[in-house]
């Protein structure tokens, strides 16, 4: 499908790194720290992921949904936009945009199924259809109706092919999946993220791609910096022995309670 990232709203809305991880004023007043803010974003990305596994959508739907979520919180506070509702709504909207519509009814059903364990904190994740539809409009507005997202998956495949390392597809793809636990998609053009993932994949699988990289017309320092950021993310929230990222539930609940608390 023909497309041009450089004339898209996505490109025009790329942000400076220091504009991304900023706690909104309202949240700050509620005492939300930057670290908690980050944790909530990671946690909610994982929630979208989980839900998507239930409703069975393609990866790009998840990616778009998480991008929406992260974009929303560069502009709006968590106090006003409850992350627990925004996350499924983003998935719902993304499914429409990416043309694999998931019915809201279905989403609500799976959400209820997911949190069937029903601890008191999980209660707060349960929403009705009307909540999602209502939030959809708010999210659309928060996104300023800019809905098109370019993901690194497409350039990734192209680049892997050109470099002749299609055997690394799975590793690199996994890494791109991991980048959605960060805000990279709001900062860098997709091909740079893809390159960073290939760069890491080469290190992981010990492939020498020096000649290929040096002929690319890109600033390798930026590629390295993105790669470093990805590694630093893993350093920050160390995955367990199964490779899953676990965030202490009490910390998340504490953080969410902060923004949920009515003044």
């Amino acid at each position, binding site marked *: 499908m023909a*497309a041009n990232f450089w004339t898209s709203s996505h490109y025009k809305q790329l942000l400076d790194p220091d504009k991304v991880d900023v706690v909104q004023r309202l949240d700050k007043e509620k005492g939300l720290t930057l670290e908690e803010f980050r944790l909530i974003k990671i946690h909610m990305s994982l929630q979208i992921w989980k839900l998507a596994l239930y409703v069975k959508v393609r990866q790009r739907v998840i990616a778009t949904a998480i991008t929406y979520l992260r974009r929303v919180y560069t502009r709006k506070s968590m106090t006003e936009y409850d992350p627990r509702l925004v996350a499924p709504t983003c998935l719902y909207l993304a499914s429409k945009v990416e*043309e694999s519509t998931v019915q809201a009814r279905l989403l609500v059903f799976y959400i209820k199924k997911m949190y069937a364990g029903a601890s008191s904190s999980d209660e707060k994740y349960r929403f009705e259809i009307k909540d999602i539809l209502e939030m959809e409009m708010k999210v659309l507005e928060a996104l300023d109706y800019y809905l*098109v997202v370019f993901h690194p998956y497409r350039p990734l495949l192209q680049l892997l092919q050109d470099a002749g390392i299609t055997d690394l597809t799975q590793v690199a793809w996994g890494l791109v999946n991991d980048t959605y636990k960060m805000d990279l998609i709001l900062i860098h053009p997709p091909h740079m993220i893809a390159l960073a993932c290939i760069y890491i994949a080469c290190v992981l699988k010990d492939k020498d791609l020096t000649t290929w990289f040096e002929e690319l017309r890109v600033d390798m320092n930026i590629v390295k910096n993105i*790669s470093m950021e990805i590694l630093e993310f893993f350093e920050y929230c160390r995955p367990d022995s199964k490779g899953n990222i676990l965030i202490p539930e009490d910390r998340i609940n504490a953080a969410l309670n902060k923004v949920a608390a009515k003044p």
Partner: protein
Amino acid sequence: MIAVALSDWLKEMTREWGPRNHAFASGHTTEVWHRVRHESHLGPSAALDTVMDALLVIEGVSWPFYFLCQSHKKGIWRFGGGTLAPDLGWFASRRGRVGTLTLGCAVGDLQKAVTFAKEEVLFISTVKFCGMHLVLLQCIKLQLDDSLYAGDPSNFSLNSRRQSQVPSYKLKCDKEPLNSRLGPPDFYPQTPNCPEETLTREYLQSGYKETVEGIEEAREIALTQGLSFSKFEHILKFKEALRKRLRVINESRAQKRKAGQAYGVPLSGQLLTKAGVFPEQKPCNEDARRRWIEALSQQNKQLRSLAEHVPHGYRRKALFEVLIRHNVPLLRAAWFIKVNYLNQVRPASTSVPSGTPDKAQFTRSDLLSKDVVEYLQQLLDEFFPKDGSNIPTPNKIQSSQSTMVVPYQTPQKNDSSSSTPDEEPSLDFKWWYMCHLVQWHLAEGLLLPSPIIEMVFNQLQEKESPEAFELLLPLLVDMIESVALSQTYVRMFMDLFVQKIQDPSSSILSSVDSSQKLSLVDAMVGVVRYLIVAVPDTFVALECFPLSSNVVPDLHYRNTFLKLPECVDNVQFDTRDAYLRYLSCGYVVSSIQKRAFNLSKIVNPSLQAHGAAKVLLALDRALITGNVMIAYNSLFEDFSDVAVEERWIAEISPCLRSSLKWIGTIGLSLICSIFFLCEWATCDHRNFHTSLPNDLKLTGRKDFSQIYFAVLLLKLKMEDLLSLTQSSDGNILLFGTSGKTSSDNDTLLDGAVVENVSVPRNNTRSLHDRKSKREIFQGPGPLHDIVVCWLDQHEIGKAGSFRCVEIFLVEIIRNGIFFPHAYVRQLIASGIMDKNESLLDMERQRRHRRILQQLPGSCLFDVLEEARTTEVRLFYEFVHTYSNERRLLLRGLLGGKSNLSSSRGDLCSVFSMQKDIDSSSPGRAKTKDKITQLKVLISRFLRFSLPFAMSMETCPDDSQGNSKRTPGSLESKVDLTEETPGCEECRKGKLQKLVDDRSSAPEGSSSSHSDDEDTWWVKKGSKSQESFKVELPLKSAKHASRGRQKTVRKTQSLAQLAAARIESSQGASTSHVCDNKPDDRNAARWKLGEDEILFILYVLDISGDFISAVKFLIWLIPKVLCGPSIVVQGVRNAVFPKSREFQVCQVGEAFLFSSLQRYENVLRAADLLPEALTASIHRSLATITSNGRPYGT
């Protein structure tokens, strides 16, 4: 309506996305739709209609069609998108849910659509599009005829409008490709075999689905690399590996770039093609050669085919001639020349490493340049034969002149016979062809410019005809950049052109008509201006300025405000642009001149050591010779060195400097000149004669004449500054000025002048009434601010005595240069007195406090009274404010000793409180006693009558103020006591006490003392202290002789001046009055004898107040006895019926003048000579009058 409005917006978006861009298909449509809904508040389907209508408005493009279809499930809107192919009557969503396809078609084609959808139609709805209703079908398992998708449009033609083929839209991207294989990143142009656009049965039936090779659909979500990073040490290892790889990549990139390889392109294929291959020349006969050249001159003959038989035999002149004769196009001619010279000088080796200069190439260029120069020379010789036989016709000149304006037109033979190459072309044509060749080859770097430049220069010099100039100047213009690069060439051509431009009658210009002359001069002026602007640095050493005004305006760099000289009017400008360029040239020249001036100053041996030595010498000399102007000019012109200036300025506290109003507006060199002057005036470490050992006390040796002289220079500078400011902005310096004028008035004894001068002062007063007092406390002028800065950085005591500084300050206060009230305010405002960060700060504060202690409120009183710039009401307010502020600063030092409230608010009450305490305290009473005793001693010594001494005791405030007037008050007081003869016992006792006092708590006592002093005037009103010493004997004399109480006046005040004048010149009338009161026994008893004078002078010497001493002596001149031997005591003489002063003053003329002689340095330095002379003239006049016309009483 909305549709029309939206269409513009959509057009724009379409331009951005492209109509056939599938990126538009889903998300973008959704964006559009949402925006329409959001902005128009329409319902979902209405919004869709609007989008469709809007799309409809934009015609002529094949539009993608987007739709929403309402799901049969209630309430859920589903977005879909597809392309409405212009040649097909249907559209299809490209990616529906599995197994679902949405089809739409025109109502008219419904049948067809339904025939495609042979299976069950789940849902049909219609949408208005293109003025017709479209049917949306949602079907399951469509069975379609494959032929439909093979692109046979005839079967499915829609209406005629869409039949017309429109040019396909192309996506554009200006990003560079990632590498030689990949296109630009994140850019996906349209492709004919785009899977989404290629409808296959499978896609139709099950929908289009993206697949990723190597990853099963189910796993694409689950993939993560978290496992790889579960170990901390692994992450560290990976990080290190990442860095290492980056280094390797960067190094490798750097190496490749060094090797000259194109970025991102591997060294292969064409890049490895051998360099230096060129066609070989082959021998051939004349005929073939001619045919070859003819072929060369024809554009349609390919060079590739010509390259196979490049003929030998054309070299140097022959080569150029043959090219000219056949008028070979330049590109081809250049090619032939290249081939020719490559064959002549073959490359040494085929592989020339990049970066190293090619020797063969240089030889070739050299050879070609020589040949070209030789040929040009020949042409010129033909133009201007030595015997002068072949003077070019005006016709030729005319043609060449036209080419001068537009230097290079395509060379054309100027006669019709050019088509036959056998005919000899004209000289003009030959020349211009060669010029073009030269230009071409210079641009390619194949010619060396220097031989040609030199040839042009030599010819310009040699052939002084305008025609030669016209021929040669265009060549020069071609090489102007090379000329500019060489200082020698610039100098050569500047000399030549400047001479020609400035001397229009020179031979080359005399013989031509005016328009031609104008164009020639214009061309030369153009070259000169270009060089000036291009290489201004070269001109710094050239000394070719000033240039005539038709080249550049002479904007003299010394003027602060650059003004256009009048001569500019003579220069005509066609456009405003030309005028501005002309002006900017002038600015460049003025900055060049400034630069040259600075440089010459730096290298001038006489100005070495920053001109300081020279200035010093001038100042010292002027002190002896009295030549003020030489010193003045030297001080303010020779003393200049940016580095030293900056260092000196840097020593000033930044906070103080930034808080001063004027400092920013004054040049560094002026500031430093004044610093230098201050240092010169107050420091005597340079001169061992004047710097005496500390324990040795001598009088009469040190006369402070340097200080007086410095003040004189400062006064001059102030006048200069004033006139400068007044010329630009009327009344900035007014406050400072008025003080100065009044002091100047002292020297004017003519009443009329005084009155005249006082008129503007009144004006300024009215002006000042309007100004708030705030302004008075601001820096009154640049000199004041500079002195404040100087005080801040001057280390008192290191290089000079504090006493010098004190006297200096007193003098500049008197002269209206320095204003204590502003100084105090500036110290407070700058915060310098609150800083306690470093020892340096403390030291500065100590210095400022020490100065402040010596500047009691009375100083301000003097200044204000002298300046008379303020109303009386304001006057008290100022002095009050000053005293309070001064106390605030001084109390900071005393803070430990006094437990007074530190809040600023109740300063006044604190102040009055302290005053009360002070006056009642025993220490205070002691001081008062001492002063009273001192006064008694003085009056006793001067043999004043006792009642006077007693009366002084009754007004201690007055006397105390008076005796404290002199700078270094405490010291002088002690000295005074010390040296008072005739009271040995008293003296000894007092001395001991005073010394004790001084050593125990000098600061405390003196400051509390001065604090109190601040207020004496508040109680007493206007009382002069300064005049006391001068007038003390006089006053008492008058008092005694006339028996009437006279209020004390100041010497400097106008009233005093007037009185002095009356008394000196119109003494008769006074005496009349006095004569009527012959009851003054005191007068008869008290005389001002030589002893008294000596004593008074001694007291003044000790207090360092030489000016008062000199003025006192001058004042005495008209009053002393004539002749050395006449001493009249108390007897009224008929021959000399002088005023009472005459009788009272019993000092001989010789004694007086010899006393005055002691102060000759002061007389000179303080510019008191005119006063002295006036006084002696008055005296002579009085003597003559009284001698010639006896006084009739």
